[in-house]
């Protein structure tokens, strides 16, 4: 079975702590690891995926048994990990298990944050590096391309990357549900803090037009405002400025309330009831709980946002289940293709195709020639078959001869020339 020639050795955030992973990471675009890997016995194709959460070595080998034994020393060779711990930190997949594994990785089903989109880009990068170093052949190329398309399928057919799983993104998502388009909206930051700044940054990428920074100390406000190209104001200006603000993010260290219901109520009339989205990520809270009772005011505190994130995470897990089913289905399809990549099935497929063409063409000719005697008909059939066989003879011989060179490469070439696979990937 050709599928068994595929081996993946890897460590990820689940099997190894960061202290181990950082020793194993392949950094920079050195060609050295590729040449070392290709030098291992049996290896014909290889690819290295190295991110902060995982290191995966994907190889195609003509002697998988031997290669598998050499891979761990290769990966751990430069680290301080001793031989006995290799197995504890790493996993080795072969055949269909390896196919499933790579499909899951690409589709972000194996990620720390399920559904995060970066991994696919990293995988594509890894494939490119491997191709640049001439380490990819017919099998690995198709395998990796397939993993890209599986990832795309999982993304479009499930809602795995759908909803926000961080506090700041959840805030942006809520803002979009309230305001629709965020363009021409104004956000006010009260106080400073990492989370507030992060949320403001997300809002700016969504097209927010203006940022106002309010701080007890005016200098700090000016400093932060400069970063966002916004305006600065002191705490006393907060309420007067509120008339033109749509989203307010508060994260001061104040122990008492910064904004009370009585302050905002008159402002809502001036605003002609345009909605106001208040986000309170300070502990203790900055904003009056009763604000949420005002019409068209929406107040979310840190617990509310955490709750949203939790719901979204649960939703992603559910969607991941659907993603897993797609992976299983695609693994089967890919294994089938690999089976066809043997010599005999390829010859069979080739002959079947030729036969079908012969039969169709003979039938058409016989239809055009009326009063064809059965004998003449037989001769035509024979001739067509003979032509087809003669034409196929050389490609078949080419496939069968054991010249040096990749067998998979040859088969893939023939299959592509005669378009024997339904979906060209």
């Amino acid at each position, binding site marked *: 079975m050709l599928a068994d020639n595929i081996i993946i050795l890897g460590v990820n955030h689940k099997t190894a702590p960061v202290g181990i992973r950082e020793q194993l990471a392949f950094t920079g675009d050195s060609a050295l690891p590729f040449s070392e890997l290709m030098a291992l016995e049996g290896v014909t194709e290889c690819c290295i995926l190295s991110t902060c959460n995982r290191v995966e070595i994907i190889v195609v080998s003509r002697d998988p048994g031997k290669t598998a034994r050499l891979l761990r020393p290769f990966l751990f060779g430069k680290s301080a990990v001793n031989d006995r711990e290799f197995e504890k930190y790493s996993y080795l997949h072969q055949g269909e298990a390896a196919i499933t594994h790579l499909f899951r990785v690409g589709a972000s089903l194996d990620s720390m944050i399920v559904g995060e989109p970066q991994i696919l880009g990293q995988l594509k990068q890894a494939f490119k590096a491997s191709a640049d170093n001439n380490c990819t052949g017919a099998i690995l190329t198709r395998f990796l391309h397939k993993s890209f398309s599986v990832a795309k399928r999982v993304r479009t057919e499930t809602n795995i990357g759908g*909803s926000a799983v961080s506090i700041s993104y959840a805030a942006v998502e*809520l803002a*979009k*549900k*309230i*305001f*629709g*388009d965020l363009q021409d909206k104004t956000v006010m930051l009260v106080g400073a803090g990492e989370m507030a700044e992060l949320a403001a940054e997300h809002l700016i990428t969504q097209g927010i037009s203006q940022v106002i920074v309010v701080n007890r100390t005016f200098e700090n406000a000016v400093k932060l405002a400069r970063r966002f190209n916004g305006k600065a104001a002191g705490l006393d200006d907060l309420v007067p400025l509120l008339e033109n603000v749509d989203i307010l993010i508060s994260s001061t260290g104040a122990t008492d309330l910064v904004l009370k219901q009585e302050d905002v109520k008159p402002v809502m*009339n001036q*605003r*002609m*009831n*345009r*909605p106001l989205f208040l986000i309170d990520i300070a502990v203790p809270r900055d904003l009056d709980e009763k604000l*949420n009772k005002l*019409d*068209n005011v*929406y107040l*979310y505190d840190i617990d*509310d946002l955490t*709750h*949203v994130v939790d*719901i979204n995470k649960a939703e992603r897990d559910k969607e991941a289940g659907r993603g897993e089913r797609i992976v299983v289905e695609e693994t089967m399809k890919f294994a089938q293709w690999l089976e066809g990549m043997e010599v005999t099935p390829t010859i069979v497929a080739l002959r079947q195709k030729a036969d079908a063409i012969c039969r169709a063409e003979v039938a058409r000719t016989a239809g055009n020639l009326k009063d064809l005697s059965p004998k003449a008909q037989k001769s035509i059939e024979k001739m067509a078959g003979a032509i087809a066989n003669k034409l196929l003879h050389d490609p078949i011989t080419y496939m069968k001869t054991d010249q040096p060179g990749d067998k998979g490469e040859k088969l893939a070439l023939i299959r592509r020339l005669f378009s024997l696979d339904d979906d060209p990937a």
Partner: protein
Amino acid sequence: MKLLFQLTFITYISVTVAYLVYFVNQNKRIRTLARYGMLTAAVGHLIYTMIRYLEAGHTPITSIHETLSFSALAVTWGYLSFRWRYRVKNFGVFVSPLITALMIVAALAAQETTRELAPALQSVWLPIHAGIALLAYGFLALAFCGGIMYLLQEREIKNKSFGLFYSRLPSLEALDRLNRHGLSAGFPLMTLGIITGMIWSKQGTGAYWQWDPKETLSLITWLVYAAIIHQRFTLGWRRRRAAIMVIFGFCFALVTLYLASY
């Protein structure tokens, strides 16, 4: 002819069921099915109304069955014309039950074309008046659906409990815009409907306005909507209050429509 009505009726019901199923499981194939079903029903319904017009010899709005069927038709075409202009996520899910509800009442009412219209009332102004007035109802019905969607979505955002609607309904802004569009298309048409009705009345009876219950109710409905428009565009009664107002206004309009068709 009865058969055509029944077929249209069944199509509307199937479309509603399909839309509701789609709303829960979000299967896009079902939505496509529902969309084509809606179009089929709209065309069948239009043909039915035209046949009825030819048979009766006058615009079919003289019985409860006819009026409700005609207004369901107006909502359907109002919706389709809206959809052609701009899209509101899952709008069909809320519009189709309303159409079906109108059709159910229409189906339960007597369907015979018995009543003869007084020759004096048979003028070209009748179809113009009826068409415009019911189209106005169609757009106000859309605003009504938008209002319901707004309140459902708003409740989930306000209470921070994200259930069935949060992810499936569009943003509050989009729903408020729907409210505005429905009003700004519906109200002028309604005004025009009343004016054409006056002309028709003048031709038939010699007086523009007779203060009969039908006319009085229509005037009150018009005043209600005029008030809504005024509050919305000058005092900033937008969003939540606007949503409540259009729901109230449409309920009032429905009662008027029902009472006026006697």
